[in-house]
């Protein structure tokens, strides 16, 4: 018997956007408010997993042709890369810095290199989470 999942699919279409937006919001707010790379990554990852659960793997793969192993690898590269990058500025390994910049349109903003590091964390979490869940569910 095929389960009728029209309601689920319709709801998920809307909810996923809320979840993904929440994930992005959490990621950026992390510096001064609750959130951060790990939680942001987890929320994004669970949003994607929800998509995979609702629709089937092939459909999502067609719409989102990412290899999540590579996403995770890129994340690790970002995190370790920022760590090594500080050596090029004659600063100790893993030094982070921040500052206030006035940007066009956005006005004065607080920018920090920690964001890049956290982006690496987030991408690793998303990539690993989806990779693990997909490989278990695809196993015969």
């Amino acid at each position, binding site marked *: 018997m095929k389960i009728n999942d029209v309601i689920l699919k319709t709801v998920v279409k809307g909810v996923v956007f809320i979840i993904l937006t929440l994930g992005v919001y959490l990621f950026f707010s992390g510096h001064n408010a609750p959130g951060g*790379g790990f939680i942001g990554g987890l929320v994004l990852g669970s949003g994607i997993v929800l998509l995979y659960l609702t629709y089937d793997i092939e459909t999502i793969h067609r719409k989102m042709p990412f290899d999540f192993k590579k996403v995770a690898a890129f994340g690790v590269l970002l995190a370790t890369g920022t760590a090594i990058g500080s050596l090029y500025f004659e600063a100790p390994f893993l030094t982070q810095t921040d500052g206030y910049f006035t940007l066009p349109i956005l006005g004065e903003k607080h920018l920090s290199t920690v964001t890049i590091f956290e982006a690496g964390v987030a991408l690793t979490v998303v990539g690993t989470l989806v990779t693990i869940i997909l490989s278990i569910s695809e196993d015969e």
Partner: protein
Amino acid sequence: MTIDLAIILAPFFMAACIAIFYRKIKRNWVGWIVLFIPIILFLTLTTYIPRVANGHTFSNTYEWIPSLNINFTTYLDGLSLMFSLLITGVGSLVILYSIFYLSQKEALHHFYCYLLLFMGAMLGVVLSDHLMVLYVFWELTSVSSFLLIAFWHHRKASRAGARKSMTITVSGGVSMLVGFLMLYVMSGTFSIREIIANISMISGQSLFIPALFLVLLGAFTKSAQFPFHIWLPDAMEAPTPVSAYLHSATMVKAGIYLVARFTPIFGGEMIWFWTVTGVGLITLFWGSFNAIRQVDLKAILAFSTVSQLGLIMSLLGLGSVAVHLGYSDKTVLYTQASFAALFHLMNHSTFKGALFMMVGIVDHELGTRDIRRLGGLMSFMPFTFTIALIGSFSMAGLPPFNGFLSKEMFFAAVLKITELDIFSLQSVGVIIPIVAWVASIFTFVYCLIIVGKTFFGKLKPDLLEKQPHEAPVGMLIPPFILISLVVLIFFFPNILGKYILQPAMGSIYPTFPSVKELTPSIYAWHGFNPELYMTMGVVVVGVILYHLLPRWKRIYLLIPQRFTLNAMYESTISFSENFSRLVTRRYMNGDLTHYFIYIYVFFVAVVAGYFLFTEGITFNPAIDAKIEGFELILVFIMVVAAISILFAKSRITTVILNGVLGYSVAFFFVIFRAPDLALTQLVVESVTTALFLICFKFLPDLKPEPSTRGVKISNGVISILVGATVTIVGLAVMNYEKFDTISSYFEDSYNLAGGKNIVNTILGDFRAFDTMLEVVVLFIAGLGVYTLIKLKAKKEGTDIENK
């Protein structure tokens, strides 16, 4: 970013590029692209020669983990320059040679990637001043050597050889690490230069001698000294360019480098003198003695390398006497042994590199290296024959080749040392020249075997797979460069002495005022003296022994098979494998309940034990917050859910009840105003539940386990103990004050890290190192799950092992 850091990083950078872009590069170009790196590095390094020869040293510090006192300090002095030139110079030739040696069908990108990895690691070893950084690079050379030996990993012997070399060199490396830590405990610094500067402070301490032995263990295993030499002959399973590069010219000399580098620290000890000299001489003798009975050309060269490394090692041991005696006009003479060591090290790299390449050519063109099948190749391969002749005669110590000069200096040093009357040299010292002389005779014999059995005698065409013919020009150029160096160094030894060896001597004897005195002029002819008579004796006895070889070869059968070092190594390994299998099978029985019992018993023992032992459990209900009504409701829900799990009949109920517990905890985090934790807990709980649901289809139905009453009771007791421990620790932690409080982060988070969310400033800044490593671990775990599931062997898959 300065040149010296770039020198270490360039090979790694290139290795990464090859690994990523190899598909886009034409296969026959890979080697040529890689070749650029060592050539450029070699040329860059040569520009340092005049400055280093004038006594300059170059040092740069890059702060890495300043809070742990770990800095990346590069240090370029005479000794490191000499080794760096060797690494990049021989490296260029070997890569050029491999371009022609390896077939286009091989996994070339792996090969060059590993080779570059090794080159970078080796440069790191000789250019680091920091002991921990040196150690990391040291182990990296072992790892890349492992990968290169197992390059043809479809062959069983390759894998076995790789494992053996890894086991032996890494265990030596670990003991060296312990030695380094002892040095740190004694001196308070990881910098080799600072330790040398404070040597008087540490030399009397009780850890000094253990540290000496542990560091030597690292050096001896790496440089294949007796009895650890057994890995080197097995490492010959590697492609020949690798043997020429790692296992004769560079990696096995890392141990020599370490001994030379640590001579100013430990050299004053009698025990250092006797250990280094003694082990070196035994290795020299044993290696040359065993080389004669080999029938594989590469095996002969492997034992010959072992023996020559022993020679260099023993010379460094003899030279350390000068450190013990201190500086004076008379003692300067004893430093000549170290000079001879460095000189012979350079010479050995030239002639042995050429010989390995020669064997590679023979193997490549004829398909065999067995001397029983070779013979009479002189007229077919005249160029290869020239290489073999010059290389072997240099190794045998004959003029006009550089080996003659260093061999004479070696004889001079062993004769000189018998004149001393310290370290009980008067009584037993006379053994030293005798062993040296006998070993040189054996060396002479196996050099004759290499040339005679391969190139003279009768051709045996029916035993060869291919028609003998000369090698392509590309494979002849690198060995010809090396043998022309062999001849050139003989005629102009003092140029090498002045520009390369003299500054290196300054690194071994930093306390000696003038390096000029440490550099003897090298003469090919110095009259009729004992050294020359010794060489003549070697030639005469050597030729006689070579001709009588079939008669005395039987003495090799006298050593019973069971007592060879290899057999002992094998039995140790198989014993420890069997023993650990036995032990592991006892507790890893595949029953999850058992595993949980181990974890929980250990947890209760450690945590509860710690709190009971330190009397850390105190309760002070007065400072606890008031319990609200809705908190009680939450607790009630959790208790009901937890108890219901025990009686759940299906897995889905269990998972949902477990989810109830998790979400209730998240509620508590909300109530206690920990939004970060609440968020994380909520998301983690959702993801875990999803994971559980996915895993369901692989799990059987839940059914009660048949178990006895006793087991049930003991499991119940353990569960209650775990719960009690968590609860009590949770309550007592409010009054526990033995750890530093984290309140400083509240003050520092904005000032130092520019963020107001202290959790994240701790994660991303104060403790970013932990986070970074966690990210890496997470990624590795993900890859692990993926490979376990996706790449598992098919049931009908063929056995690819042991082909």
